């Protein structure tokens, strides 16, 4: 798979089809895998692919420091590809200008990350170049998808609140969660607004609740569950659970899963006269 990846990128760069490949690399076999930007055909051997390729590289499609390199090719796993679709639907990328290299993935991390246990996109489905074949099946039961959340919701509301108070007390407002998220592309985030202040920037429990409620809700119907925010958080906050909550609400309420179906209308920004609820009197 790695050879095929490198060949593909060498060809793309040599032909001038792209000016840069966004991929994974490591400085040496002992170093961690990091995002790299290959601009010369002779450097494609820097590219690697293994089960430590965690980063969701689609974030870089909103970073001007990367867009300035020219026409881009990007390596994506199935979960990352979902982000591409959402970005496309929100008019943030011109898909026709990007060469998408889809990497079949059996899961990342040792042990496997929780998101990989219920993955049903082991093989990216809309790539320009498809590399590799996943051995893990794509039919992860939908029933497993929200298992952690369903388990959590068995707690009483008081227990749930106590859990979040303990988790969010550790937040230092570093915004690593926001910066790694491909869906967080606003040029000025609402938390940066200060005339007047909308969301408190203080790393107090009040400010942390305000921030995380805000971010979870701004991601409702948009978060694809790549869990990069959870991995990036230096305080180990269980952001995955918050995002699962919104993903479940989107699927239960509207049958919608972000980034899965190119023909599905995104739920936020749209409405239906048939939207059903039982709590409005």
């Amino acid at each position, binding site marked *: 798979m790695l050879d095929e990846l490198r060949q593909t990128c060498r060809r793309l760069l040599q032909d001038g089809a792209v000016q840069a490949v966004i991929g994974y690399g490591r400085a040496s076999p002992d170093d961690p895998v990091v995002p790299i930007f290959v601009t010369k055909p002779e450097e494609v051997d820097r590219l690697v692919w293994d089960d430590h390729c965690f980063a969701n590289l689609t974030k870089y499609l909103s970073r001007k420091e990367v867009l300035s390199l020219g026409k881009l090719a990007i390596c994506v796993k199935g979960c990352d590809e979902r982000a591409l679709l959402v970005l496309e639907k929100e008019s943030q990328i011109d898909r026709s200008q990007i060469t998408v290299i889809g990497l079949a993935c059996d899961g990342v991390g040792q042990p496997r990350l929780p998101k990989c246990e219920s993955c049903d996109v082991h093989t990216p489905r809309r790539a320009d170049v498809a590399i590799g074949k996943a051995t893990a099946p794509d039919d992860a039961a939908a029933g497993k998808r929200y298992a952690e959340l369903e388990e959590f919701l068995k707690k009483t509301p008081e227990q749930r609140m106590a859990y979040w108070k303990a988790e969010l007390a550790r937040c230092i407002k570093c915004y690593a969660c926001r910066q790694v998220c491909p869906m967080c592309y606003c040029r000025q985030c609402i938390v940066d607004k200060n005339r007047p202040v909308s969301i408190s920037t203080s790393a107090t429990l009040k400010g942390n609740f305000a921030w995380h409620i*805000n971010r979870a809700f701004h991601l409702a119907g948009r978060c694809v569950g790549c869990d990069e925010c959870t991995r990036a958080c230096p305080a180990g906050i269980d952001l995955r659970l918050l995002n699962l909550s919104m993903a479940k609400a989107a699927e239960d309420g509207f049958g919608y899963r972000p980034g899965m179906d190119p023909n599905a209308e995104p739920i936020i920004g749209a409405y239906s006269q048939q939207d059903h609820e039982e709590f*409005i009197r």
Partner: protein
Amino acid sequence: MNEASAFQPKIIAYVCNWCTYLGADLAGTNRLEYPANVRIIRLPCTGRIDFNLIVKAFERGADAVLVSGCHPGDCHYTAGNYHARRRWILFRQLLETLGIDVNRVHFSWISAAEGKKWQQVITEITEKTQAMGPYTAYREICQEC
């Protein structure tokens, strides 16, 4: 029970200008009595309701929040309440997950002609909140650390 000694909840009602606000006004002109615990905040449309407003109400000491607007199909801006309804369906799940008391967050459609409904809804919410007691959980979060 002596009314003066009973706990008096603070209810924040975010209401749309064209329907519920006028409905509340109608309740007033018809001299319909309802508890004075509600603080009404008028917005052009429920579509303008930012979930942040609900959170801020609790931050500032509200014991219950009501969000109310035009019936589906009657929105002055055509579809604002449809957008709002969709957001509320999602937002309630978030409140559930966080352990915030969803019994203290109420939504209703009250038209300009429904002064009586306004009276009923406010009375019901006030009594219910009185029975539940003050909402200390969110206020504890807001203590300076």
